[in-house]
C-alpha cells in the first residue's frame, strides 16, 4: 500500500509545488532577462541561434529554457502561475492556451501588432487564426506547420494498379484493389488513438465543412447530431467495414515505428499522417523515403460542403507572452525575429516549414525542396486549416475524445453512442 500512498503523495506534492511556486524548469523573471521556454528537442539549435542573434543587438538579454520530453504541457501548467513562469513560451495553439487566457495570465498581442503590423501580416492567416482566443491574437507562429497528408507506397500502388486517390470513390476503389493484392490497404496506428482521429477530422471537414466543428467547439452540441455529422460517420464506418485498415489496427502503434514500417516494407498501401512522416521515413527507411514514398492531399468528397483545399493538422507552433513580463518592448523585438529571413532559412534547413509570407523565397534551401513546396502551397492555398481536434478542445477533452474515436472504429460505439460521447466533451 505504501506505493499507493506515494502515488497520492505525488499528487499532493504537485499541489504544494504549484501552490508555493517552487516548480522546476523555467527561470526567474527577476534577473533582468527575458526567459523563453520551448519544448526540448532537436529543434532547439535553431531557437538557440535566434536567441543569440537577438542578444547581439538587445540590451535586455534573452535566455532559452527547455523542458524535454512529452510532459511539456504538464510541466508548463505547473510553473505558469508561479514566479518562475517564463516571459515567452512555446505551445500548439488552440485549446492548450485557453485555460491560461481564462486565468488572465497571457498578454493579448493587439498593442504589439498596432506598433508593428508585420507581426500579423507576415504570417499566413489560416495558421495565425488557431492562436486567436475570443477574437484576440495570443500567439506568433514559430517553428513550422504540420498538415496531415495521405502518404503511400508507390510500388505497392503500382502493383495493385492504383493511383493516389483524388476522390472518396477512388479511395474506396483503391482499398478493394489493394485488399485483393494481399496487403493492408491503409496502415493505421490505432493503438495510439490520435492517428485514428485524423480520419475523423478530414472526413468531417470534407462532408460538413469547417463550420460544423467550429460550432461544436463553441459549445453547440447539436452540431454533432446534425445530418452532416451522421453522414460523415456513415462514410467512416463504410471505410472501416470495407476492411481498409485490416483487422488488427488497434494493436498497431505509430509511436513505436510499427505503422510506418508497414508502409515502408510494402505491407500496406497508404497511411494518413502529419507532414513529419517524411522525415520519420527518412530516418527509419532511407531508401524508401527517397524512391518509394508518395504523398498527396486527402481525397475530395463529392457533394460535401468542405472545400477541396481544406487541410487539417497541427497548424503551427506558437510563442505566447505572459502578461506580467517586465520587458514588453524587448519581447516585441524578439517576436519580430519570427518573420525574419534568418529564422525562415534556419527552420527550412532542418526540415521545418515556417508559415511566413517570405518562406517561398527560400524553399530551395529546404532539406527537400519539392516536398516543402508542395506543403507550402497546400497550406497557403487552404481555405481552412483545422487544428487537430484534440488540441483545439480543452485538455480535459483529449482522453474521452480519443476513446470515443477508437470505440467507434472498433464497433464498441455506434453512431448514437459516438455522438453522445462527443456531446459530453467539455468545451470550456
Amino acid at each position, binding site marked *: *500500500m505504501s506505493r*499507493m*500512498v506515494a502515488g497520492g*503523495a505525488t499528487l499532493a506534492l504537485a499541489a504544494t509545488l504549484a501552490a508555493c511556486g517552487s516548480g522546476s524548469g523555467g527561470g526567474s523573471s527577476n534577473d533582468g532577462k527575458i526567459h523563453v521556454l520551448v519544448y526540448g528537442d532537436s529543434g532547439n539549435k535553431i531557437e538557440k541561434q535566434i536567441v543569440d542573434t537577438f542578444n547581439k543587438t538587445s540590451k535586455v538579454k534573452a535566455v532559452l529554457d527547455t523542458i524535454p520530453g512529452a510532459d511539456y504541457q504538464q510541466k508548463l501548467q505547473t510553473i505558469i502561475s508561479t514566479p518562475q513562469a517564463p516571459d515567452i513560451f512555446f505551445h500548439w495553439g488552440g485549446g492548450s492556451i485557453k*485555460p491560461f487566457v481564462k486565468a488572465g*495570465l497571457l498578454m493579448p498581442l493587439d498593442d504589439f501588432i498596432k506598433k508593428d503590423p508585420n507581426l500579423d501580416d507576415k504570417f499566413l492567416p489560416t495558421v495565425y487564426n488557431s492562436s486567436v482566443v475570443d477574437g484576440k491574437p495570443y500567439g506568433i507562429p514559430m517553428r513550422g506547420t504540420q498538415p496531415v497528408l495521405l502518404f503511400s507506397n508507390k510500388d505497392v500502388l503500382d502493383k495493385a494498379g492504383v493511383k493516389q486517390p483524388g476522390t472518396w470513390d477512388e479511395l474506396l476503389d483503391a482499398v478493394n484493389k489493394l485488399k485483393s493484392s494481399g496487403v493492408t490497404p491503409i496502415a493505421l496506428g490505432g*493503438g495510439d488513438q490520435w492517428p485514428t482521429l485524423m480520419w475523423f477530422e478530414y472526413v468531417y471537414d470534407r462532408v460538413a465543412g469547417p463550420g460544423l466543428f467550429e460550432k461544436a467547439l463553441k459549445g453547440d452540441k447539436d452540431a454533432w447530431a446534425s445530418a452532416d455529422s451522421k453522414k460523415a460517420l456513415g462514410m467512416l464506418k463504410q471505410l472501416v467495414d470495407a476492411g481498409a485498415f485490416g483487422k*488488427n489496427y*488497434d494493436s498497431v502503434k505509430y509511436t513505436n515505428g510499427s505503422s510506418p514500417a508497414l508502409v515502408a516494407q510494402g505491407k500496406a498501401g497508404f497511411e494518413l499522417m502529419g507532414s513529419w512522416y517524411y522525415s520519420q521515413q527518412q530516418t527509419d527507411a532511407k531508401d524508401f523515403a527517397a524512391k518509394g514514398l508518395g504523398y498527396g492531399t486527402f481525397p475530395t468528397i463529392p457533394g460535401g460542403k468542405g472545400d477541396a483545399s481544406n487541410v487539417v493538422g497541427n497548424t503551427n507552433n506558437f510563442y505566447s507572452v505572459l502578461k506580467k513580463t517586465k520587458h514588453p518592448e524587448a519581447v516585441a523585438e524578439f517576436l519580430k525575429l519570427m518573420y525574419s529571413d534568418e529564422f525562415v532559412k534556419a527552420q527550412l534547413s532542418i526540415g521545418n516549414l515556417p508559415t511566413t509570407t517570405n518562406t517561398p523565397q527560400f524553399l530551395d534551401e529546404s532539406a527537400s525542396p519539392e516536398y516543402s513546396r508542395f506543403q507550402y502551397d497546400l497550406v497557403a492555398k487552404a481555405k481552412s486549416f483545422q487544428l487537430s481536434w484534440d488540441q483545439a478542445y480543452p*485538455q480535459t477533452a483529449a482522453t474521452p475524445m480519443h476513446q470515443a474515436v477508437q470505440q467507434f472504429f472498433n464497433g464498441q460505439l455506434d453512431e448514437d453512442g459516438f455522438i453522445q460521447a462527443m456531446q459530453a466533451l467539455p468545451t470550456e
Partner: protein
Amino acid sequence: MTTQFTSAPPTAEATRKARRRPEDSYAARGTRPGFLWALPATLFFTLFAIAPLIMVAVLSFMSWNGLGSPEFVGTDNWKRILDDPVMIRSIWLTLLLTALGVVLQTPLSIVLGVWAAGHQRNRAVLSAVYFIPLLLSATAVSVLWRALLDPNFGIPARMTWLFGDGNLFGEQATAIGVLAFVSTWQFTPFHTLIYQGAARAIPPVLYQAAEIDGAGRFRQFFHITLPQLRNSVVTSMILMIVGGLTTFETVLILTQGGPGTDTTISAYYMYQKAFKGFDFGAGAAIALCLVIAATIVSLIVVRVSGYDKMRSDMEGVS
C-alpha cells in the same frame, strides 16, 4: 581432570538460553528498543505518507486545474466519480487484474521456488536466468512486450495458428490477458525467490521421517512443503495484491487504458484525470477510492490468512 566432567553435556534447553543471553542483558539494562527508536520513521511516515494523504483528501473536495488556487466545491468531485461508470468499472478491473496476478503467480512461483531450492549446479544457473525479468524496470518490460506482441512484426505474425489476426490490444479479454501475462512474467521471479528461501528453511528431518514412513514426492510436497510455506504464501500474496492494486506502468505503456476504456484501471484513471485532463480534484477522489479499496482488501487478507495472530507453524520443530 575431574572438574572437566563435573557438569553434564549441555542440554538443548541450555543452548537456547545461552543464545538468548544478549537479549536478556538488553532487558536488564533497560535499553529495550522503545518509542524513541520509532520516532524518525514515524516522522518520515507522517511527513511523506499521512500528511499527503490528508492533503489529497482535502483536494478531493476542490476543483483545481493546476492554475491559480483550488476552489472548494463540496462533494462535487465525489458525486461525479461515484456516478462515473468508467470509475466503477476501473475498480473491478483493478481487482480482476490483482486476482489474476495472484492466481497465476502463486502456483507458478511455489513450484519454481521449491524446485530451485534444490542444490544442483544447473538449478543455480537456471534460477539466475529466471531472475533476470525482475532486474528490468516495469517500463522496459512493457516496451519490450509491446514490441514482441506487435501483430505484424512480432510473435503473433509468426504464430498465426495461435494468435489469429494478432489483435491482442484491440479486444478487452486479450488486452487484460496480456497485462496479466506481462506482470506474471516480471514478478514471478521475485516470489520464486521468497519460496526458494522458505523451502530451504524447511528442516530436512521432516522429509527424512516422511521417507521412512513411505511417503512419495507428491505426498511430501502436499503434506510437508506446502504447510511449511504457509506464512510465505501469505507474505507473497500480500505483496502481489499490493503490486496488483498499484499496477500502472504496464497499462500506461501496453494499452493506455484501451481499447476504449476496457483496461482503464483505477491508478491509470487517476493519472488520466489528474495529469492528462488537469482535473486534480477528481484525480484525488479516485486516489482515495483506491486507498479505501486497498485497505479493505488488505484487511480481508490479514483476517482470512490469520496473519494478524502471528501464529507460527514452527513451534516445537527445531
